[in-house]
């Protein structure tokens, strides 16, 4: 069972918010004693997901949570937007697939960098992506 120890909500509307958000995630990761490599993986994954949110949905909100499961602590990030949604999630999760002009590494790359990854999307309503990085995961 996952217990939430601490939480904070952030609104993302412009590109500069991304830098603030990344710094905030880093602060939380340092606070729970996450190692540098895992911190970097978490922040990179977060950066990919927040970019998608700005690019495809012109922003949204992110819930940052410190979570605990048994003895393991971690950070959970939930990205919510009211964008166009993703019609074909399996396709979006494939390396190299993009509807923009990017490399198509965002979603599949982010998934590889974190411990748990969950994506839900309803076309016309929006997308929610939730990731967890365990301190030692």
């Amino acid at each position, binding site marked *: 069972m996952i217990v939430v120890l601490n939480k904070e909500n952030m609104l993302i509307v412009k*590109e500069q918010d991304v830098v603030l958000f990344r710094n905030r995630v880093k602060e939380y990761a340092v606070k729970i004693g996450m190692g540098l490599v895992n*911190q970097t993986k978490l*922040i*990179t994954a977060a*950066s*990919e997901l927040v970019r998608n949110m700005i690019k495809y949905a012109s922003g949204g909100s992110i819930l940052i949570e410190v979570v605990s499961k048994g003895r393991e602590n971690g950070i959970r990030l939930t990205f919510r937007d009211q964008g166009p949604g993703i019609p074909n999630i399996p396709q979006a999760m494939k390396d190299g697939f993009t509807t923009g002009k*990017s490399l198509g*590494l965002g979603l599949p790359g982010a998934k590889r960098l974190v411990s748990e990854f969950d994506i839900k999307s309803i076309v016309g309503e929006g997308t929610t992506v939730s990731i967890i990085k365990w301190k030692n995961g």
Partner: protein
Amino acid sequence: MDKIPILRMGRFLLVTIQVDLYDRLALNLESDLVQMVSKTGASGVLIDISALSIVDSFMGRILGNIGSMSKIMDAETVVVGMQPAVAITLIELGLELKGVHTALNVEKGMQLLQNKMGLIAENEEETG
């Protein structure tokens, strides 16, 4: 408006990225650099990313773009000072930074550029 400074050092351009980049800033750097290469006729570009705590797919693509754009403008690009955690993350993300040379630090990066220039000069002498 924030701007990343580009320094000219002989035949090379030197860029030290000291702030966390947002996308607009990275895109500006890309176009500024290519314009500087054209204006100064530089034969090498050295980008120091030792202060960057993350390089995501967007930043990786920008670095690759700078490499390819400089290449067709007849300049070599070397990226130096990548933090180990960043290297681990980049590979896991699926980015290999093809098209740019890399070196451990500024000194080695400069050597690499100078060697490349030296080799080109030698070849020109031989063929010319």
